[in-house]
């Protein structure tokens, strides 16, 4: 059925089954491929977006559960102060390797900094534990979050 969802401030109408995961609406229906498919089971964090500011795994979030909530994706996170600071820190510290997980990493980190502007190591571990990086960039991710928090 038809659904209207607000993504990065713009309303989109899509005609898909109610139980369609937001991830595939973003990627395949709307062509917003910055949000990545990693596991389809909320186990890796690659698909992380914000729903009303809360880091959410889009691969298990059905389209009918979103309603009027505001969806923010990696394509627009740089417009927020936290997202912008994180992206700059990511560049400064050369966090990225293959890069496939990094959209999700940045989104989880942005939600963390919004809720907890000066996170401790334990805060970072708690917020980022669900984001897997197969290249193993975890140390630099931690350092970049700290740097962004100081920005």
């Amino acid at each position, binding site marked *: 059925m038809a659904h209207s969802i607000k993504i990065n401030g713009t309303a989109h109408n899509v005609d898909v089954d109610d139980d369609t995961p937001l991830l595939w609406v973003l990627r395949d229906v709307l062509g917003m491929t910055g949000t990545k498919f990693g596991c389809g089971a909320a186990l890796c964090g690659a698909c992380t977006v914000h729903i009303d500011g809360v880091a959410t795994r889009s691969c298990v979030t059905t389209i009918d559960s979103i309603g009027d909530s505001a969806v923010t994706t990696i394509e627009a996170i740089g417009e927020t102060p936290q997202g912008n600071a994180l992206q700059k820190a990511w560049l400064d510290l050369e966090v990225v390797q293959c890069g496939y997980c990094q959209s999700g990493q940045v989104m989880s980190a942005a939600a963390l900094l919004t809720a907890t502007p000066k996170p401790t190591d334990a805060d970072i571990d708690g917020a980022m534990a669900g984001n897997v990086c197969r*290249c193993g960039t975890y140390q630099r991710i931690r350092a970049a979050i700290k740097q962004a928090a100081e920005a």
Partner: protein
Amino acid sequence: MDTLNLNEPASGVATTSRRAFLQGGSLFLGFALLGANSKAVFAATASQVTGEEIKAPFEPNAFIRIDPKGMVTLVMPMVEMGQGVYTAMAMLLAEELEVDLEQVQLQHAPANDALYANPILQNQTTGASTTIRAFWTPLRQAGAVARTLLVAAAAKKWDVDPATCLARKGVVSDASGSLHFGYGELVEAAANLPVPAANSVKLKDPKDFTLIGTRAKRLDTSIKVDGRAAFGIDVKVPGMKIAAIAISPVFGGKPKAVDEAAALGVKGVHQVVKTDEAVAVVADHMGAAKKGLEAAAIQWDDGPNATVSSADIIKQLDEASKQPGAVARKDGDVEKTLAGAAQRIDAIYQLPFLAHATMEPMNCTVHVQKDSCDIWVGTQVPTLAQAAASKLTGLPLDKVKVNNHLLGGGFGRRLEIDGIVHAVKVAMQVDSPVKVIWSREEDIQHDMYRPYYYDRLSAGLDADGKPVAWTHRVSGSSIVARYIPPLFKDGLDFDAVDGAAQPPYALPNIHVDYVRVEPAGVPTAFWRGVGPTHNIFVVESFMDEVAHAAKQDPVAYRKALLGDNPRALGVLTLAAEKAGWGTPMPEGHGRGVSVQFAFGSYVSQVAEVEVAADGSVKVHRIVCAVDCGLQ
């Protein structure tokens, strides 16, 4: 740039466009506008990575294209999957071409062994940690050839000796430093000059390097922090459908029954495709495709491997490894020294099958038409993909186009073309372009795994605890025998014993052999670090056991065996020093050490690890010393 007078109008530059100014002559404006280290990033900065095949008037070789506006495109023969080679290869080219990294864009190479073969691997394969070793000279030569031509073109225009001209940052200047041409202005003239042989041009003395050896910023980072980077799975082709695929859960099995009507009843599903070993559901989006695949309720004929179990595979390995194998190394007299040793240590190491688990699940987009086949994928082997698609479709090679992409991890998984073959088989039955995406479950279940290895080792120690005898038998599947049959000789797989046959230590009596054991129904493949990733773990773990039996410190024990190997000794000494080896640690903490020589590099690591009361392990710190050398 320091030698130039920036107030002096640059000869010939007056007619160039602003873009050329920025691209070809960033020294004039680029630094003033942007600042050398404050590159504006994100959407404001154009991606430096392109999938588009760039054509330009000046193409002196397969790697460099420069257009009249001064846009420098470097064609990347090897793929970027996180290892940083797009930046490293660009540095090799840019160093000799005399351009800044900010001035270039990078293009994925098309499939072409003749132009882009890896000189070590002899085809267009990214693997075996060879990229920089293989392209160290060819890419510098390619850059030098282009620079030589551009300088010659400028010298001709000025009617001066090329040797008096200087190329820096995309600009050629004359001896006085008052005349300048941006590279873009020289392309037409340079393109008309005869191209010198690659080995005839003079390469820079390493002491004059301005890029190589510096900590350059990666060129693929900005597009990877804001969602712009295009991996294979991100391709968008007009009219494209999305397919979910299910391959027989048992290797070698076939689909027996498929409820097509149920699948087609799902909103957004267009088609159900069956191949010999798989079923794919083609839909508008992956959500519908997956739902359709579930609705299809596939029943399988498990085939000949239905009853294969891990226990059977391990038993087979255990038995086979009791027999002698193909000899990889034989020095001295192991039998005699082992028999006469003061102490003997024996061990068996078993290493499990491992999946590659790339973050980007397997995927491939294909459009098969009457006289063409287009493939969009991230692959380590574009020419193998092209050949496989050509064979399947019956189309000639030149009608199969492989559009390569950034890889969301490779680790050897994308040295295999099984996913591409499945996708082409599906696409041959679909009228539109189709992107075949594997679920994570399919990705793990149908990986081609690092072999299950079964290693037997023995060491004999003399009265002082020194290892006078060392034997190591590796048993497991041979990837080389399947992947590169000509290199599988006399039963010996060089990769399976890599890191075992030539440990860095002085071991006067050593015997290393290999027994090939192919487990039924489990495909195996090169996996991140291939042979050494298994062997270094075994050799170094066993070396620790031996040092322990000798009641000696593991670092001191190794050092005593590295007297003839200064580079290995150097990394070990450095790592131990930086890790504070021997200094006190908190309760429950311990340190472990390893030394290895693999892929031309010496590496030593010291890990500081805590084992908690409940047995859980936490790694606190790893110090890594690397000597990768400079050819």
